[in-house]
């Protein structure tokens, strides 16, 4: 569980998060949607403790960061480090003594090659594998489906379902509504630093239609197609 209360975050005079409050319960998959710049990544970084903020973020796990797997939008990799060595680093950081990475290599990644030379999708899969190997209790996955092939998307969805069944708390952001509606129990619409709508499974379609109407509006008419 992650309980957020009156979360504010500003960069200089620009307030990015404007008083977010919500209780993300465990055993559920929470989707966060919003336009670019709505504050999704900032919200995730605040939960991870990577940014200072005003307000409170609580969990039954303390400190949150030691129990949280954070998959960033564009995972960073160190130069001249192989996929295997990257996974070892993530495990050492959490004091997990394992080297059995080949056996758990469900994405069939070339673990003996330098991670920096991986394709975008392979990098995402390696980073995801890393946070899964850490055996976290809380998962924050920023755009997990981005740049990943269709087969791996199916696999990622199944992984999320498995984590949900193990009562983990999962937060996902995505620009692709269908990928969220497949895996999430709740979707929260973040707009200009605030949650403006919370939808459960039965109201996903109306949320999608509402978003479409808002995004498209009469903009297409301007193109004179």
């Amino acid at each position, binding site marked *: 569980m992650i309980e957020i209360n009156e979360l504010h975050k500003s960069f200089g005079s620009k307030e990015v998060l404007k008083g977010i409050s919500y209780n993300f319960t465990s055993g559920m998959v929470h989707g966060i949607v919003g336009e670019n710049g709505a504050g999704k990544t900032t919200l995730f970084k605040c939960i*991870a*403790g*990577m940014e200072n903020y005003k307000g409170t973020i609580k969990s039954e796990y303390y*400190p949150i*960061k*030691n129990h949280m797997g*954070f998959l*960033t939008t564009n995972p*960073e990799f*160190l*130069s*001249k*480090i*192989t996929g*295997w*060595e*990257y996974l*070892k*680093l*993530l495990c*050492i*950081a*959490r*004091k997990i003594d394992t*080297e059995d990475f080949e056996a758990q290599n469900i994405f069939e990644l070339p673990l*003996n*090659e*330098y991670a920096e*030379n991986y394709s975008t999708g392979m990098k995402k899969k390696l980073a995801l594998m890393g946070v899964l190997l*850490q055996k976290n209790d809380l998962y924050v996955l920023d755009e997990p489906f981005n740049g990943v092939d269709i087969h791996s998307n199916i696999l990622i969805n199944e992984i999320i379902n498995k984590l949900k069944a193990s009562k983990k708390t999962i937060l996902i952001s995505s620009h692709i509504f269908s990928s969220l509606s497949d895996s999430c129990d709740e979707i929260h619409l973040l707009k200009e630093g605030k949650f403006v709508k919370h939808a459960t499974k039965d109201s996903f379609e109306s949320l999608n239609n509402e978003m479409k109407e808002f995004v498209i509006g009469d903009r297409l008419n301007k193109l004179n197609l």
Partner: protein
Amino acid sequence: MKYYFKLQYLRLQRTLSELGIAAPLGIFLGIVIFIAISKYLFYKLDFANYIYVFFAIISLLNLSDIKHVDKIKAIFSAKDYRKIRFIENLALSLPFVFYLVYESQHLMAASVLSIAVPLTFFESNLIKGVKIPTPFKKWPFEFIMGFRKTFPLLLLSFVLCIIGVQVDNFNLSLFCLGLVFLIAMTFYFKPEKIYFTWIHTRNANGFLKHKVLLAFLCVSIMSLPFLLLLLLSFPSNYLWILAIQMLGYVFLLSMIFAKYSAYPNEMNVPQGLLYGLSLWFPPMLLFVIPIFYFKSVRQLKQILE
């Protein structure tokens, strides 16, 4: 093409200003440091000219890196690409050439120039995917990265160490042992992305302890062939050899603390100067190490606790 070089100067200017130093002053300091190191090298070593040419080639090879080359190729025509590579290689080799001429090493100076030109046709994509095996696989990441990046230099140091033994030049071989520690210190120059620190469950103190223990273990493995060679070849000088080994550990420890005292930023100029002075006059480390340690704990607490 002119704009390309203007942009390179702007990048240098921005890097220097991030370090809190004006560009002209930074360039002036760079020249002074380059001359000082060159003078020191020629003053201390019998084979300085060969080492100097080796350093020049290593520097030039950086400009052949496929990532760098691809960026230029993507923007410029084939003709301009060739010109840029030629100007870059020439500009980088000239300081080495001038200093070699100053030392009356005309043949070596000509060698650097004659290597710089053909290297403009070289692209190091050949070694891009080649994985250099390291003995540090289980202890990522500084020594894995560093070993792979400095492998030719480490190899050369070992060859020099052997030459020192063969010609009975204890100082040369001892210098090579010290060089291993200096190379290891360079593995800690650049701060890693904050994510790679954030992932740790250790507190600030535990994190530093973990980093120091791993560094000591890895540097011991890396320096072992040098240490054994020296102890077996110059047994009567064992005290000097062990003293350099111990001093190496202290220097490496201070480097780790110095790095994290500014983390996640790079060390600024005052910190760098203080650290540089203490390396020049090692007794200062007695005061500088605790200062850097407490600053490191403070910086890391913001990320880890």
